[in-house]
């Protein structure tokens, strides 16, 4: 019985993995074939003559200047996205904690307003944002970009963290406070460690939102050396024609750090699991 169940679970997961991976095989095919995928009605993507040509194009192989620029843009992306995750978590964690544990004037309308910010399509807000960053002298700077990304990520982060704080039994902080810790001390020393898996996941979300964004980055940044990678990827798309090969290759390159990061975050998840998390 247990055997059968395990088998079923594996079958389910294998099917889901096939669903997840299959479309990506087409992206990989595109990236590996210098002449395009070929117009064949095929079920399985096969590369007739695989080559790394497209990847070389993306990283500027053979020209140290171009490679240096690519590395610099990769570094920009990493810095901006990591900073976004850190800033978003730093802003959201205390607020989420307060919303989970305190009852205060403005808490309920605040929560509702927070949800409301997610409901408004951003179709008309790019220009006001541009004006605002201009007034703050934060145009064309990574700091400005990080601020924008982080504040956009904060509402969701607050919701997510508030949920996980609610799931943590109140007893553990109260125990710490009975032992003489202040509320802030209990928050830092007891609650935060208990919420570590949730914080890791939320940070990952914030990182991802910044990592793939290109419209704002392209609008706010005006130096090639300040560009983030999605801006570079998007430049393979033209009005009339798209360089599919480099476009796909760049997309794959860009997703590698995310996978690495998820791998790390996953260990966080697992450790949270094995520690029994919140027994306190």
């Amino acid at each position, binding site marked *: 019985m247990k055997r059968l169940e395990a088998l079923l679970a594996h079958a389910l997961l294998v099917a889901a993995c096939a669903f997840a991976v299959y479309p*990506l095989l087409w992206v990989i095919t595109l990236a590996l074939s210098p002449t395009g995928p070929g*117009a064949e*009605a*095929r079920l399985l993507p096969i590369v007739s003559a695989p080559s790394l040509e497209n990847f070389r194009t993306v990283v500027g192989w053979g020209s140290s200047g171009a490679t240096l620029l690519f590395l610099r843009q990769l570094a920009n992306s990493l810095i901006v996205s990591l900073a976004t995750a850190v800033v978003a978590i730093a802003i959201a964690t205390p607020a989420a904690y307060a919303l989970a544990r305190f009852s205060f004037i403005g808490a309920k309308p605040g929560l509702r307003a927070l949800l409301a910010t997610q409901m408004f399509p951003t179709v008309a807000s790019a220009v006001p944002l541009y004006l605002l960053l201009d007034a703050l002298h934060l145009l064309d700077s990574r700091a400005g970009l990080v601020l924008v990304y982080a504040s956009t990520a904060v509402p969701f982060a607050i919701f997510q963290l508030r*949920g996980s704080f609610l799931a943590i039994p109140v007893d553990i902080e109260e125990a710490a406070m009975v032992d003489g810790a202040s509320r802030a001390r209990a928050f830092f020393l007891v609650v935060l460690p208990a919420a570590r898996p949730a914080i890791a996941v939320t940070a990952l979300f914030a990182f991802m939102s910044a990592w793939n964004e290109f419209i704002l980055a392209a609008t706010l940044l005006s130096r090639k050396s300040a560009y983030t990678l999605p801006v570079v990827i998007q430049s393979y798309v033209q009005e009339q024609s798209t*360089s599919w090969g480099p476009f796909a290759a760049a997309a794959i390159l860009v*997703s590698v750090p995310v996978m690495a990061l998820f791998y790390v975050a996953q260990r966080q998840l697992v450790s949270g699991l094995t520690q029994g998390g919140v027994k306190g």
Partner: protein
Amino acid sequence: MRGRSWALVAAFWAVVMLAMPAHAEEHVVLWHAYRGDEERALSLVAKRFEAEHPGVTVEVLAIPFEAYAAKLTAAIPRAHGPDLFIQAHQWIGAYLGEKLIEPIGDGFPDADVAGFDEPAVKAVTWAGARYAVPLANKCVALYLNPNLEPRSPVTLEELTGLVGSLPRGVYPLAYSADNSYYHAPFLGGFGGALVDADGTFTFFGEGAARSLSFVKDMLARHVIPEEPSGALVKELFLSGRAAAVIDGPWLMADLGKDVSFPYRVEPLPKLAATGRPMRPLLTVEAVFVTHGGATRPTVRELARWLGGAEAAMTRAKVGQQVVPRPALWNDPALAGLTNLRAFADAARGAEPMVASRGMQAAWEPANQAIKKVLRGDQEPAAALEEARRRWVDATRPLPPEASPFPLFVVFGAGILTLALLAVKRATQAGFRRDLRASLPAYAYVTHAVLAILALVVFPLAAGALTSLFAGTRDAPRYVGLANYVAIVTARGGALLGHGSFYLTLLVTLLWTVVNVFFHVGLGLVLGVALSRPLMRLRAVYRVLLILPWAVPSYVTALAWKGMFQRQFGAMNALLRLLGAEPVSWFSHFSTAFAANVATNVWLGFPFMMVVVLGALTSIPKDVLEAAEVDGATRAQRFRLVTLPLLKPVLLPAVVLGAVWTFNMFNVVFLVSGGEPDGTTDILVSEAYRWAFTRDNQYGYAAAYAVLIFLLLAGGSRFFGRRLTQEESR
């Protein structure tokens, strides 16, 4: 003596001061959206200008095409824009409306006019003034595969007549038949045009209908392939399965060195049916000066230099650009570039695209009419009549100016009410105590409130305010609630008619419900399966399942679109394998909708799975163990223990997921693109169309955004209440 030396020193300084400006550092900024060879050529040319003008540095910045237009309109009015920028000439009308450009003056003097192609000069001229220096022509021409068609066809019918004699699976002709840009030469061959010189829609009548019937007939006889995208046209030509293709010079760059046969480019042939030439539309890429740049002689000089003979030579040779300078093509240095030269010839017979806003608003209705006819949904005359109605609707005159007085009254009344409420609350018994009790909490939330107010709420509120305006950004007109009234009354049409707010709302609701169901369902099942203890391969599964989320969606969504292609997509290959008939996925609402859903479910389930995984880890194990000891079955444990404990974390993710799906613009735009005939558009993609393809009606789009907001806010009150109720638990 002393006086003389002073005079000498003064004279010396005077000379230095006079000489200074010539050698002073001068910085010129040039923006463009080129890549590859064109970008390389532009950099070379800019370097050469720097070498000839000591002290001048030219900063050349490439901006992705997708963000280019938006960036120009945001940056230039705030003086953060470039001094010059390269853009297609048909933007002149719109850019004048936004006051982004100035006449170029001595950057393109009368003396230079003779050196350029006449259509190119015409293209950059508006109301008698020249606004830019032409750099490159872009129009379509005929690419021929000599192995399949060694002759030079004089008429198109010679080419289409090949249909029986070519090997199986080889098309005589391939081009993006469902795109009005590519249809324009056919239309011209039948004596029609998309718009007239004023930009009024003229895609109707006898000639227009005949042109559509002509193309439909080619499709029926398998002269041209079905649903041909630009990428497919290239593939067919490259693999020898199209004797000829109609495409622009960009295809030459794409074919590059991959092509195994010496292909030929020729101007489009005549149509034997009418005896008329097929005149393609001409786009002239030109360098414009902004008003900051227009006042500086160096900037104008650079513009002139970029279009000049020396730079044009480099741009043709290195950048493979079709430079609009006829004399240059007789230069022996360019003798080898016969295909490029053919494009130069083709451009001379092309029709410059009309630069007014009417042209911009014509693409969408024209494309939809062509698609409907080619799919066989409608007869040409009826489809074109509908297209004309839609164009008239999109370009309808601005609503009358309204008095802002009611706005002030409402605004004032709102503030007064808020103030009264605040006073009432403050005088309530226990308010002071509550406030004192609240103070510690404010220390935790203040920075979040400030950040969200400044960077999220302010831009949204400012965006919402534009919904009360109409017209260009430069000369907005306050119209009160006219935009809202037009939307909720379906602009006088049927309330559930095509593209009406209510019909789109129904589609959006269906879209949201279906997607959230699959996201949460898959996320829960997979999350729970993955959290099984002692699951081997767990790490492998997790990383594989997260992949759809890790790879940028603007690439994967396009991969999905490719999988749904009619003839060469993987989905139809699968159907054929199973013995079923292939499906035209984007011809029917149900299948196009399903394609969008499949893509969005694929993109979105990892997110929900990670949320579930994260939530599962925070469930104390001892609770589950206790339930097991008490004899609960696995199903009971899941329903009675796990699910209730998951709820506080899952509920916000579900509510937010629903909100995000409601506004999921990317997938709809990239996969179905609203096909067929805009029926799979959701509210937010409809708003984008009003903002960017239908005469730039930002105010109207903003009104859509506000309505979407109000709908979501109203709809989520129920969930919102439950969300805050968690507190009491």
